[in-house]
């Protein structure tokens, strides 16, 4: 915005020896004299020395350099960037909740919320039991696959170490399989985005531990043959893992448990709108059917009469164990709980309905504007894919160019280059909380950009033009690693 100060300095550049936000310090005492000399720190750490105002101003200004849901339409496919109700944060930050030590007496008010959250999640997923412990989707996946392994092991079925994933799967699926000591078998999708049934049949074997699927898939379409998939995998002795990242699309419409899945993780930070926070925290609650119930990660919340308590290894001797130091991202779960109470029964169904309405509308409008949908014969779920391979051929513009140019138009870019199997793709997820007008404005921008492709493609390849920085050199970032500020020697 300004002439001299195109950038915000590093906080270290604002630092000066001896400067302090002294109001925040406890009075000096000689407590550290008790430290034996050889265990003491010789020179103070190079943390910044700044005033309270400098700190407030610096981080306030940094915040203004972000796009966010609170400021921009953010149609980032697979990420479900919808409105994060302010109430969820206010209520989760009540001082009694914030002040509670996790190892103190079991807090009945908080546990009541968590118990009810478990119950609601069970109901909407069609599962038997839920653990809120996993701290994000990927850890939920870990918990799921670890339970699957524990299950096979408990049956002494020791050879099952293969996890089948469709090509389009999110990277966390194969990575999780590896974390659990499994090998990954990828299977292709057919032209309509469905799992290739023949390939699946060929893939299953006595080594099959499970298949990991998300439905609707990351291709933005519903896996119609899901019952057949389930049958094939189950008959082969494997289990079905549901990656709940796309649960927003089907909330109250169809339940993973009813589709035949044995275990599911949910991204509460997607479907249940806890904030993304610039990268986290999330919560990856897992739900399981009866077979996997004994293996759930601890702790989970139980109820003895009117009293809530944490269930631990004593209650679940076959548990896969603990995944966090305490009980997962408790505050995130609390935000999800508030959100679900605000939505209620009908509100949850509306989430899926209006997410689908927005996605299908936007897909149709973009198609009408000349963009190519990757799966034109399919309904969009809550998201859909536009492929720019034609534009790439004709104008040498890339999906990345369009993404960056959208920033100039005041829209966060859709997800680019994922799923990997669709060339030059944009995965677009408008979510249910955006108004039709905003979808229309997005279309207008896309149309304007399409015109620029023809008339001024340089405008795209050099985009963005209006951000705090122009396009960044990622190669330099990776080659000339500069990962931390260092004090001048």
């Amino acid at each position: 915005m300004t002439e001299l100060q195109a950038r915000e300095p590093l906080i270290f550049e604002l630092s000066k020896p001896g400067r302090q936000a002294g109001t925040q310090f406890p009075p000096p005492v000689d407590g550290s004299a008790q430290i034996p000399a050889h265990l003491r720190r010789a020179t103070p750490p190079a943390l910044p020395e700044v005033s309270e105002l400098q700190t407030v101003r610096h981080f306030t200004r940094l915040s203004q350099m972000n796009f966010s849901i609170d400021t921009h339409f953010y149609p980032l496919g697979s990420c479900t960037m919808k409105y994060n109700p302010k109430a969820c944060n206010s209520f989760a930050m009540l001082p009694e909740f914030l002040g509670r030590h996790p190892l103190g007496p079991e807090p009945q008010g908080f546990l009541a919320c968590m118990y009810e959250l478990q119950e609601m999640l069970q109901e909407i997923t069609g599962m038997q039991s839920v653990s809120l412990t996993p701290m994000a989707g990927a850890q939920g996946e870990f918990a799921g696959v670890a339970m699957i392994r524990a299950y096979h092991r408990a049956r002494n079925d020791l050879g099952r170490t293969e996890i089948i994933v469709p090509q389009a799967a999110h990277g966390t699926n194969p990575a999780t399989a590896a974390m659990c000591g499994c090998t990954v078998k990828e299977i292709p999708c057919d032209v309509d985005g469905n799992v290739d049934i023949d390939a699946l049949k060929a893939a299953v074997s006595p080594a099959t531990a499970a298949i990991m699927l998300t439905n609707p898939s990351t291709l933005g379409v519903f896996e119609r043959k899901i019952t057949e998939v389930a049958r094939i995998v189950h008959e082969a002795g494997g289990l079905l893992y549901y990656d709940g990242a796309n649960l927003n699309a089907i909330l109250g419409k169809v339940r993973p448990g009813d589709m035949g899945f044995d275990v599911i993780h949910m991204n509460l930070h997607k479907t249940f709108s806890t904030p993304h926070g610039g990268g986290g925290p999330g919560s990856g609650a897992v739900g399981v059917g009866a077979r996997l119930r004994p293996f759930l990660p601890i702790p989970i919340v139980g109820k003895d009469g009117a009293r809530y308590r944490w269930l631990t290894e004593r209650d679940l001797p076959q548990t896969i164990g603990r995944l966090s130091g305490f009980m997962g991202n408790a505050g995130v779960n609390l935000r999800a709980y508030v959100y679900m109470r605000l939505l209620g029964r009908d509100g949850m169904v509306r989430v899926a309905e209006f997410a689908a309405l927005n996605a299908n509308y936007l897909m149709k409008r973009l198609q009408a504007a000349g963009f190519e949908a990757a799966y034109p014969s399919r309904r969009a779920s809550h998201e859909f894919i536009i492929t720019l391979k034609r534009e790439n051929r004709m104008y040498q513009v890339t999906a990345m160019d369009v993404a960056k140019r959208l920033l100039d138009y005041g829209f966060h870019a859709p997800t680019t280059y994922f799923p990997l199997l669709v060339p030059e793709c944009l995965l677009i997820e408008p979510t249910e909380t955006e108004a039709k007008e905003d979808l229309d404005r997005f279309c207008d921008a896309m149309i304007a950009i399409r015109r620029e492709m023809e008339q001024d493609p340089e405008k795209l390849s050099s985009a963005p033009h209006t951000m705090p920085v122009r396009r960044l050199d990622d190669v330099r970032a990776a080659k000339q690693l500069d990962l931390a500020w260092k004090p001048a020697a």
Partner: protein
Amino acid sequence: MAFIPHTPDDVAGMLAVIGVQSIEDLFDEIPRELRTGKLAVPPAMAEMDVGRLLTERAALDGRPMNFIGAGAYEHHIPAPVWAITTRGEFYSAYTPYQAEASQGTLQLIYEYQSMICALTGMEVSNASLYDGASALAEACLMAVRANRASNSRRILLPRAANPIYAQVAQSITGNQGIVFESVDFDPVSGLTLLEYLQPYSGQDIAALVVQQPNFFGNLEEVDQIADWAHQNKILLIAVVNPTSLAVLKPPGQWGASTDAVRGADIVCGEGQPLGVPLAAGGPYFGFMATRMQYVRQMPGRIVGRTMDVEGRPGFSLTLQAREQHIRRSKATSNICTNQGLMVTAATIYMSLMGPTGLARVAAASMQRTADLVTRLTRVAGVKQAFTAARFHEAVLILDRPVAPILAALARRGIVGGLDLAERYPELGHALLVCATETKLAADIDAYAGALADIMNSSRAAA
């Protein structure tokens, strides 16, 4: 309709564009027989009603005075920390994949990484992991990958380290065949003595974990331990409390030898003490730092400083080839979403405190714990468990079971500490206590008074 902006007109117009009759038609690819009936969840509540419900539930939990630490520490959180952290632009942004539209978050993470490096004495830090316990698990997996000198999956893990961390590390790494060998502690000092490690000298071991201060609050002899590890080509994983690093020797400098190789190889821990509320256990964040030579083995996101096409400095996620979305099953970890917002809070916290403030917090907490120990051990039937120098926690030994005492204290609004009976039966009636700068002399008196009362009357009753 909660959070749905569509008017009936909008819906009609949009359906027309799509070319369907009703919203229901959009779900026509889902097989009929799978369709869900009415969900058995409660009906919607207005914000006002949910607010009242949550306020009532919070009131149920009250605001007891807390003397537990054990991995989560109650510190003063400056008012600016959460006022800024909850700004929508931080709170409601995604992972900064579109760097140019996320410079705020990216620069903040770069500053965070720099601060973690400064505290730990290491060269590189990631952008966070889930929490301290899972960070240790990741550190173990990383050490096994990184230790080229070893073919082993054995890791030495002291019993004086946080036993919950040990459980978590086991749950997370077990399927990859990592084996933890437990190292005992000295019942007098409460330390992991070198003599307990020496039996492993010369063996093929991937890594050794040291927690400083250890779970009992005691200060380990980290120089000796670091030297021993390096002599034996064992990678050293340090688990540290970040507050303590304002006054304790940073892991990057551990080791008394003058060898070129000294200090910890991987440093991790729980970031919660840096401005994150206790909040019933989370969200917190795990931090991790290492030497530059191991950066490609490190899990989690990393932000680098680079330049834009006009030569202006800017920030972006880098070394993504380590991560699941690029490397898939060959990634260093499956972690994707991390604990970004907590890192935001911690970065603001560290900026406000600076080296002086953080050292003051550390010193005040040490002093308060010393005072607490002095006052509590004056109560008949209470003594100190260990002789070693401490940071801000201590183990006390009571002359009778701890659980009923804690229950009685809780009734008086005091959370008196953590009962160690189950995890360390050999210690007898052991109680782990902690006082930070948030506890005034009067609070400590109140605790001591209540404890004396309870001990007296339970004796009288016995």
